[in-house]
């Protein structure tokens, strides 16, 4: 199994999720994160003082799938999340040694 971690622009979450559901991904977990990268944050000015917001709000999506699905998932995420503009984000893939569904105790791809 693979854990695919995608860092996305927040407003892409819904469309990525819909696309993944369409190819049969059953679940995923999302987290609000702060991204530091080439794309820089806004400057806010309060009463003349500048505050540099160093990060960009991003959303991190973690998707665990069987090895066979992994490439497909990466492609779908890439296609739906890309805008061509800086800050579109990254996809990271990790190997997973085990998955368990808490409710039933099923393991492996059955747990997903």
């Amino acid at each position, binding site marked *: 199994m693979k854990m695919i971690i995608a860092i996305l622009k927040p407003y892409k979450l819904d469309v990525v999720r819909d696309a993944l559901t369409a190819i049969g991904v059953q679940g995923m977990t999302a987290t609000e994160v702060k991204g530091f990268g080439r794309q820089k944050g806004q400057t*806010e*000015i*309060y*009463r*003349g*003082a500048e*505050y540099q*917001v160093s990060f960009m709000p991003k959303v991190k999506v973690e998707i665990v799938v069987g090895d066979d699905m992994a490439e497909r998932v990466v492609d779908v995420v890439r296609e739906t999340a890309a805008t061509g503009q800086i800050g579109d984000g990254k996809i990271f893939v990790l190997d997973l040694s085990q998955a368990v569904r808490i409710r039933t105790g099923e393991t492996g791809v059955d747990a997903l």
Partner: protein
Amino acid sequence: MPIFWSFICRSMVATSTAACLFVPVDALAQVAAPTISDGDTAWLLTSTALVLFMTVPGLALFYGGLVRAQNVLSVLMQCFAVSCLAAVLWLAGVYSLSFDNGGGAERWIGGMGKALLNGVGADSVSGSIPETLFFMFQMTFAIITPGLIIGAYVERIRFPAVLMFSGLWLILVYAPVTHWVWGGGWLADMGVRDFAGGLVVHVTAGCSALVVVAMLGNRRGFPNDVKPPHNPGMTMIGASMLWVGWFGFNAGSALAANGSAAMAMTVTQISAASASLAWMTIEWIRFGKPSMVGLVTGTIAGLATITPASGFVGPAGALIIGVIAGVVCFGAVQVVKPIFKLDDTLDVFAVHGMGGIVGTLLTGALAVPFLGGVGLPEGMTVGQSVWTQVVGIAATAAWAVAVSFVILKAVDATVGLRVSDEEEFEGLDISTHGERGYEI
């Protein structure tokens, strides 16, 4: 706008034909005892509530929204605790020092004859209202003034220092200046005009704020590594409450429900609105975006600036004052922190101090009937009138600075002024008060 002005204004009323409709003159002649007006009393009861509302929650929220989330409760608590302390001290003696007759020292300070409201009962009268009501109305001014200074020292001061400083400041700075200006002291004698507290409230607080900053030091990380306001919406709520409450502050200072009060309310509104728009416009031009925090800061600048003038100028004067307030206070904000490197954190001097100074000055000039004002003080030219105001400002500022310095030395030597670096980093909410602002 106190008791002296009130007596004058009341005696004018008593001799004016229109007002006599309500007061058959022969009846008046027969009765020596002063009497109260239920209408004036109703308005002053309301005004007192409005001015208390300015500090808690108004000012507390205005300030609380501007600090970082880890300090929000400490700011709310400072405002609230200072309010409680001021109320008790006002009763204990500060009212008396401000407004009681000072005998031989009358030019400089009042007496202690009315400490604990000694001799003042439910039927004591001051002008056309109960004296306890005058006491209460003035108390709310004594509450908000040290409250304003809080903006200078947030996020790094020790809480005992807040209490000790505020208490001593009320006795040693607020009481004398109030007596000078409103209690029959030397500035009143000179003819200094301060309708609702440009000197008494804003100049004292603004100038003392700078001294506090100089002695307490800047926040860690100032100026490059400090946090933006954690909740500007809270600041807007506070600013709105200050705006509404200021009607009690200024129009209440007429000490009556009459045309003077209505005009004071009018000019207050005009100045607030035009200062807001002025500030917004400058920001828009200068930074490309008009901000909400800027807009409401302009409001407070306009309100502070009209305060001394509010019983003397007309609508046209108020427009002028408002625009000047927006421009000058905006400018002052760009100077104190960035250039002087003085971390007057929430811009107490730039907004209140400068507002009070500019407003007090303009009161000297803009009261001219040509602009709808009530006229200059009798027998004064514009130059003399402005000069009188300059003396008032200089004396008030000098006293506030000097005495604040002494008080702060004493506070530092006893309870200590500043929290440790760790406490400052962790935030005063947890480190000083053991609470957290948001558990959402």
